[in-house]
């Protein structure tokens, strides 16, 4: 074997970083544009859009846009609502969808094939096309609360949470992952007398770190970033509104672009933080499993 040439090795390393960095620039520039623009007064912001100045914090830099944005809309409230709805929905989704996926992958039961096909078929239905029928349904559904049985879920948190918990994509993610787990582990557990619930909690889920992280990220993005039409038509009180509806507060006849950018920057921070935190957990979970052969 040839001895490793350290200079050559360093060069290769450098070229790798070069490739990574060029790709990074392509992905980064609109986000830099957003953040930098949030610091500029409208007129300068718009004048800068055509040149590289759009990416540089130069000129009249201040936090005025942030101050104005907080004055225009209860941003804290919107972020709180979105985070609350997202956290509850995602947690329940991971639980119920992984349970269903477990049943679809490992258990043999009457109706399994049919039900799984039906679930997969629902992947195809774009939400926009069923929004009105769904609205008519939730406006009649019963609820048991402190004031007894009431009808109609409109204008609440539950209307933003419950219909979104189960979805085919999350089920499908788990199923595809479960298929790759070694069956011998499960069979061995069953032979030792474990119940299915025990197999699920003690064998399968501890090995599922990567897919849990992936599913959590994807679902979080859906809940936090894409909830617009639904809360718009089901929620009337400002106190329940999520961040995407709040964005519309900034689109007046004359759009305050600087404030828009400030708002966008603010609402993006929680998701980014979540992704960073999860990525760390995600990598740790991989280091500890290494299950596949």
């Amino acid at each position, binding site marked *: 074997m040839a001895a490793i040439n350290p200079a050559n090795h360093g060069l290769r390393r450098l070229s790798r*970083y070069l490739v*990574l*960095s060029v*790709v*990074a620039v392509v*992905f980064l520039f609109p986000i830099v*544009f*957003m953040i930098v623009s949030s610091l500029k007064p409208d007129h300068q912001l718009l004048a800068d*859009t*055509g040149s590289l100045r*759009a990416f540089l914090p130069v000129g009249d830099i201040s936090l005025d846009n942030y101050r104005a944005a907080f004055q225009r809309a209860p941003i804290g409230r919107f972020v709180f609502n979105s985070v609350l709805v997202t956290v509850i929905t995602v947690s329940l989704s991971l639980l*119920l*969808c992984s*349970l*269903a996926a*477990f*049943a679809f992958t490992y*258990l*043999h*039961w*009457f109706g*399994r094939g049919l*039900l799984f096909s*039906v679930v*997969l*078929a629902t*992947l*195809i*239905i*774009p939400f*926009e096309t*069923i929004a*009105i*029928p769904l609205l008519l*349904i939730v406006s009649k559904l019963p609820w048991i609360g402190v004031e007894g049985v009431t009808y109609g879920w409109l204008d609440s948190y539950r209307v933003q949470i*419950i*219909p979104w918990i*189960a979805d085919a994509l999350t089920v499908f*993610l788990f199923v*595809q*992952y479960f298929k790759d787990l070694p069956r011998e582990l499960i*069979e061995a557990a*069953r032979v030792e007398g474990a119940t299915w619930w025990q197999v699920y909690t003690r064998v399968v889920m501890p090995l599922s770190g*990567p*897919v849990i992280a*992936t599913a959590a*990220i*994807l679902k979080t*993005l859906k809940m936090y*970033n*894409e909830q617009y039409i639904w809360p718009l038509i089901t929620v009337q009180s400002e106190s329940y509104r999520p961040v995407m509806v709040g*964005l519309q507060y900034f689109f007046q006849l004359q759009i305050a672009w600087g404030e*828009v950018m400030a708002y966008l920057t603010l609402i*993006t921070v929680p998701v*980014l933080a979540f*992704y960073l935190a999860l*990525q760390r957990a995600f990598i740790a979970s*991989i280091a500890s499993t290494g*299950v*596949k052969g």
Partner: protein
Amino acid sequence: MASKLTRSNRAGWAFALPGFGLIALFIIVPFFFAFGLSLTNQRLISPNPTAFVGLANYRDLLGLGVITLEPERDAGGQILRGADGTPDYPRVRNFTRNNPDHPRLDGMREWFRWQSGDTQKVVVAKDVVFMKALVNTFTFVLIVAPLQAGLALLLALLINQRLRGINVFRTIYFMPVVVSIVVVSLLWRFIYSGDNGLLNNILSVLSFGLFRPVDWLGNPSTALGAIIAMSIWQAVGFHMVIWLSGLQTISPTLYEAARIEGSSPWQTFRHVTWPGLRNTAVLILIVITMQAFAIFAQVDVMTNGGPRDATQTLVFQAVQRGYGKQDISGGSAISVILFLIVLSISLVQRWLTREKN
């Protein structure tokens, strides 16, 4: 041994029911509701009574016809020609508007035409906008699905290296996904602007001023391409993450073995990586196809379906009709057609990628 895994009806239903029940109540039931609406003349809100109309909404969307246009001739039978020498043809509206000889063509509009000899064939459609939306949606899917899946895999391989600081790059590549598609579309409107847009200015600098500015979103020949490029840019990180989670389930010992046997990077990919990504590949292909068929927000924010229907898509049309024009039955009919299309495609996909054992 095998019996442990064969029958477990009670456990199966108990595990699947909570998730399935929610999907049934909040997706399947509303969809059947929408299907029912598509067979009526229901408006979003109207004081008029609802009536069952059968497949009328579908006929209004799918109706097609062909007209053969003979060139105009003068009294002597000579073909009349315009200044540039091409024959003059009667206008299509002579056939499709109040013409008792062609009742079937009434209200149809030209979709496209072609020349055959001296005559022209014109395909007319009851709903040209729908037809264009159909073609655009397919174009979008056919370009986006392979390109985005491939690029996402490349990126996943790129960031699956053991390098110091790789997490920073991982985060950066994922960033566009973290920003909502609505927001991304807004930002890219600035970049694509024809007046003083960033893209035009960059291309102009790179070509030393030779490049002539393009109104990317305002030009029928570039608008769909512009939306496709942006959509891939925005979503590729999403699929990169899925590829990555697949890559990371492949045991390092396999790579170790390949290295010891002295296989090239391509051989390693071909014989170790790719077989290990099988289930992930199926997942990604299906997910991208579904998402691409549902394209809506980009069009809504950036082009409104224009210019001249160059970016109409099925979901955009369904929303435009169902809400904007209050024609909920017509909008629902589009949804049902979309569902049937994607269902047949995914059945084919599943058959092609079925496990052969």
